[in-house]
């Protein structure tokens, strides 16, 4: 079977990081959005998503020497760790609150699930590629959960201008998600 270039590249990255943990950041940069998307879809609070994402990468860094290449993408291993951490967190939370009524999070990941996760991580990456003023508005509005008024004050613009930037940013994101604008994405995520 012909090994795809992408797989071979990833394998080299993993092996480099196994030899030199300082190289792990390359794997981190390549997979951060995917892991975050996977986790965020399964927990209710941003703080939980951040904690668990941190745990996943810390665990991965610590256990990287034990990782064996079996032809499965590296991210599948990260998803497996993430699924465990999500379950642990849910266990701990339901033990702490003494109520087990909250529904157990689904950590099954079939192809459809993985596709949805990939889609979401792609959206995160597109945000990073937006023009700077649009990007800042989207980050502040969604990631930092600020109001239009707060953003306007911070950026020294009118609320109308911020709403306009937000609108144009979301439009641009929709276009990029539909592949209407290739820009730098073709090479990275195709």
């Amino acid at each position, binding site marked *: 079977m012909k090994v795809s270039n992408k797989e071979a590249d990833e394998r080299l990255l993993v092996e480099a990081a196994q030899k030199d943990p300082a190289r792990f950041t390359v794997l981190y940069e390549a997979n951060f959005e995917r892991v975050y998307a996977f986790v965020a879809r399964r927990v209710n609070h941003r703080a939980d*998503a951040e904690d668990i*994402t941190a745990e996943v990468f*810390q665990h991965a860094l610590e256990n990287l020497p034990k990782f064996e290449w079996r032809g499965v993408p590296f991210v599948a291993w990260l998803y497996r760790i993430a699924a465990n951490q999500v379950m642990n967190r849910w266990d701990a939370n339901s033990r702490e609150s003494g109520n087990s009524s909250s529904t157990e999070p689904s950590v099954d990941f079939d192809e459809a699930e993985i596709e949805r996760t990939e889609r979401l991580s792609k959206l995160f990456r597109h945000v990073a590629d937006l023009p700077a003023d649009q990007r800042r508005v*989207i980050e502040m509005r969604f990631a930092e959960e600020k109001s239009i008024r707060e953003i306007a004050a911070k950026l020294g613009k009118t609320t109308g201008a911020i709403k306009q930037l937000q*609108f144009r940013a979301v439009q641009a994101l929709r276009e990029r998600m539909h592949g209407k604008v290739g820009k730098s994405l073709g090479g990275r995520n195709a």
Partner: protein
Amino acid sequence: MRKQTPAEKLDKLIGQLQQPGKKTLAPENSGSGEAIELARLAGELRVLPRPEFKTRLRANLERRATMATAAKAVPETQTKITPYLSVKGALAAIEFYKKAFGATEGLRFMQPDGRVGHAEISIGEAKFMLADEFPEIGFRSPQSLGGSSINIHLNVPDVDVLGRQAVAAGAKVVRPVADQFYGERSGHFADPFGYTWVISTQKEALSTEEMHRRAAELNAQQAQADVDDAKSSPTEKLRHLMPYVIISRADKWLEFVKDAFGAEEIFRAKSPDGKSIMHAEVKIGHSIIEVGDTNDQNPPMPTAMSLRVDDVDAIYRKGLEAGATSLQAPSNPPYGGRGASLRDPNGNHWYIFKSEPGSDVFHGFGTVTPYLHPVRAGRLIEFLQRAFGAEETYRAESPDGVVHHAQVRIGDSVIGMGDAHGIYQQMPSTLHFYVRDVDSVYQQALRAGAKSIRPPENQPYGERNAGVQDAFGNHWWIATPLGSQS
């Protein structure tokens, strides 16, 4: 009313989405149309990661990676000890260690019966393991054994903070946090599961020599406290005139007195090269014997000592078994009681005795009492009276003037002596005792005819001392703990 622009319409929908608990758009907003499609995308953006979080996590991983590289440099085959605790109620214990010590749980295996079969816990960099007790395989907890003989020493950045945290979580203070002479600040805490944790923070990095020096200082302070104690209490106390045995292979001798007489080693300071013993102290009953290896300045001075025991024959046998040779087998001497004599492997004499009840002989003797063999005991007694204010308390003399046995009291201590004769020839000894004012006693001893070995000077181990030699070659080291002169 002004018509809403698409940007305003989208923002209104986003506003709806951002209400807590909102997962989908209100039904009236479902359907198609650009605004709705954009709002759906915006809905997905609600979980957008904070860029600041991504940056911070990256920095955190870089730091961990650096540490991992450093850790990797240590060979993986290094010898390591990991405590494995058996506890009754392992789940509760894990929760306790998390609360008390900020521990994290790495791994846990549960048994089908609900017991924890194995768990791995980390406190900072330190790792330990624990499991529920399994009495069926002899794996018992301190609670079923009635205590644990193992203490766990836990180094932390701030013992005061962690100590308080542990107490808040339910630990009990066994010994409060305090600065220790070896450069640590530590306290002992009992957890609810029967283990004692010595929580400690390194305050100073000390050399072994410095630790020994401080230990000696502390000992001198303790000795002074004992002196004060003895003055205030009529009950039997530590004797403050101590034989100082100078011999070769002091380490072997320490083993001998432990084996033969059940001595307890209470202090040992090695020479800077670690090869010999500079100073050590053992306790037998209520008495202390000091010992040091012989060197250029200190020629060997084996010493004769009386040893008060309950069973002369048994101790004599133990002495022989431990390597001593017999000077005199157990017998009933004419002055009553029972006695026997041994010579230990380092050349010291031991006069083992049990005194006759009500007899004046050996009255005031401690468990160990130095015993001298001067050529003329009478002359030594006179010297001791003039030099140290000694008091003669007993003398058995034959008509020809030979002193068979005499006793003098110096301060709170007694020494015995008998004229040199037969196998009991002169054994010049070193004796060490505490006085209120070393300088005046030193002058007094010189006036009584002693030769100076060393005039009074302050010692780094916390005492001011001086040495004099009497006409029979005995060395007398007089000392006053520093800071106690009146």
